[in-house]
């Protein structure tokens, strides 16, 4: 994303919204349809477990709840990061962004552990439609988290001298939009895939 937009267009735009931010909201709205289609795939094939394990056989709700909690807390850290950057507390912003990235990494670690465990219990991409839809849907979410972590680490590089101050608040905010979106997607996925499974 170009940096020049932040400085030049922010007062000039017709809507008063920074170009980059508006563009990013549009990107996120498009991503919503992307995840919705994947989720529809998971739902239309629900119950097609073939010879492999069923969701109830493999899911461990306490563990996934813990990783979900970590991811949700990372959103809080992200909010504080954006706020600190806007307030000009450059060092604090850097700290919060680092914390967000670390919690994102923790979530990815949980996911790697979960994927490996499921694999050993006989659930693979080819074992059944449940395996196919589960791994592709949550895998794409995990890939989004990974991109987010990479982005946050790049922000830290961006602020390696002098932290993430007001001049970089726009950059932090857009990264934050992405991060919150990925979190919200997980809230939906966790509810539909794990919680509803436990409820029925």
């Amino acid at each position, binding site marked *: 994303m170009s940096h*020049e937009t932040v400085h030049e267009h922010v007062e000039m735009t017709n809507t008063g919204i920074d170009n980059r931010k*508006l563009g990013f909201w*549009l*990107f996120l709205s*498009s991503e919503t349809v992307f995840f919705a289609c994947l989720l529809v795939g998971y739902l239309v*094939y629900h119950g097609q477990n073939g010879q492999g394990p069923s969701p109830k056989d493999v899911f461990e709700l306490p563990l996934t709840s813990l990783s979900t909690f970590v991811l949700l807390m990372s959103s809080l850290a992200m909010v504080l990061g954006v706020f600190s950057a806007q307030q000009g507390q450059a060092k604090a912003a850097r700290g919060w962004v680092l914390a967000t990235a670390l919690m994102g990494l923790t979530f990815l670690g949980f996911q790697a552990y979960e994927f490996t465990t499921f694999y050993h219990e006989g659930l693979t991409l080819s074992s059944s439609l449940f395996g196919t839809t589960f791994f592709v849907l949550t895998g794409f979410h995990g890939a989004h988290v990974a991109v987010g972590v990479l982005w946050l680490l790049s922000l830290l590089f961006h602020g390696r001298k002098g932290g993430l101050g007001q001049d970089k608040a726009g950059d932090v905010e857009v990264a934050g939009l992405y991060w919150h979106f990925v979190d919200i997607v997980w809230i939906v996925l966790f509810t539909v895939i794990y919680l509803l499974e436990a409820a029925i």
Partner: protein
Amino acid sequence: MAIAKTLGFIPRPTAQTGFVSWLTTVDHKRIGILYGMTAFIFFLMGGFEAFMIRLQLMKPGLSVVTADTFNALFTMHATTMIFLAIMPMLAAFMNFLLPLHIGARDVAFPRLNAFSYWSYLGGGLFINTSWVMQLIEPAGRAIPDSGWFGYANLTSVNFSGGMGPDFWTIGLLLLGIGTLVSGFNFIVTILNMRAPGMTLMKMPIFSWTTLVTSVLVIFSFPAITVALLMLMFDRTFEANFFNVAAGGSVVFWQHLFWTFGHPEVYILILPAMGIVSEILPTFSRKPLFGYSVMVFSTALIGFMGFTVWSHHMFAVGMGPVVNTIFGLTTMAIAIPTGVKIFNWLSTMWGGRVKITTAMLFALGFIMCFTIGGLSGFMHALPPSDAQQTDTYFIVAHIHYVLIGGSIFAIFGGIYYWFPKIFGRLMDEKLGKWNFWMMFAGFNLFAFPFHFLGLMGMPRRIYTYAPGYGFEFWNLVSTIGVWVLTLGILLFIMNFVQTMRKPIGTARDPWDARTLEWTTASPPPVHNYDVIPQVAVRDEFWYQKYPDPEHGVVANTKKAAGYGAHPEHGIHMPGQSFMPALVAAGITVLGYGLLFTSIVPAAIGVVGILAGVFGWAFEGDGGTVLEAAGGDD
């Protein structure tokens, strides 16, 4: 115009001419020209494929090509025409015109705009390298041959073991990235970068169709992206999405595909309607009739485009309730579409109509698109569709809306904006020959499809037996393609002749209405020396022809301002290698997925990362154009 200085800590390329200047350009006008030229070459390739199809079908029992090659030809013909020719030709107009139309200096994200083009080029070359693969390894079945809609499970490894569907899947994924990015870019440009006074309802109608089309793009392309990813996982990593043995549903593919596929056909026609809606008022010397209704009809068609996808699947067996609902929603679209047709006619009514080549193409559009709309209305009715599905009647419909519709509008647009884009007027006499040959050839070629379809000739058959009554109309249709081809050759001749003339068209050769005609032909890199101030719709027209009765008076000071030189330097965004680098990386990664080979995949990922970080950290760059020079 003088380049004063280069800003930024990592210097950006500043070449003004030559290969590097085009590789690194971020100028929306140059990107538009790149889109147009590339898309026209793909258009000729798709046309050649059609030519071969018609040669094979000229007479019963011919074997000009084999059945397998025929399958590859019709698949690549449709894929090429839709994704590599018509969409990007329309994108060429959007790129060139949108900032000019709304009085901006460029799009919101110039580098992303360049990236869209380069990833389009990468994806287009990617799909077409399947022909090369086929030559290298004839047994490999590398050319996509499962139809442009890639219905499951025809595309499964069991039934298409070759690389054809892989080329198709990954190629379309690559193309989708650039299209989506253009969608975001154009929406932000329209919402945020209009000139002072240019409210949304004062925009040229083409900007409105660009806006609605972009909204369709960003909400429909994710659906095909998901469908293609699922197919890729099925084929490459043995997933089960469309594996019937594991319980997968082939109808699920159809739903996902047409959730994208129907908005896609409006992506192909709405900008074409926009072009026609610009040409008609200019050559009727009247404002567009019912501008607001046209805007709302466009938006309504866009919205309703998402509610009708299952009418492509009436023969699947979804049941009478679903069929009825989708039949009704489909017929409802005829209302805003019909409104548009009557508005075009009313625009001409009572006007001083001047028949130029552009106007002829616009008139041809109205006629042929109406025919295509009427046949579309017929297969909106499920019982009627049951007779027409998979016959040449459907082929007639899509060719009437895509050639008679989109292509005619595109050619009209080329004749209309050629003086603005290249600074030269195309030859009108040759142009009229060009139109009449294309018009006659097209109707001769596609109208018989209606008869063939109603007689029961199925689509996608590579030959047919004598004695069914198909002979005569097939022969007529093939002769029609020859005439159409001559028409297109005349266009190429006209283009080459015109480009050999010196640049020197007036700013406003047609006495037109929109802002792009106020600047030089071709426009300077910064479009407008002074950003225009807009008070009314068709501002430029009322500056030339004040209309005090309607409260529109000339503002001579403002009119004089159009040609004036800026007081301060104009900051233009810097050129960049990064968009092309990222696009190249993505394309190489595509080859890695195609061959499931780690080396090209790794090279691709490294290219993408280098490009993205270079992009983020290459600094502001840019040049400042000083006021001193003169561009006219």
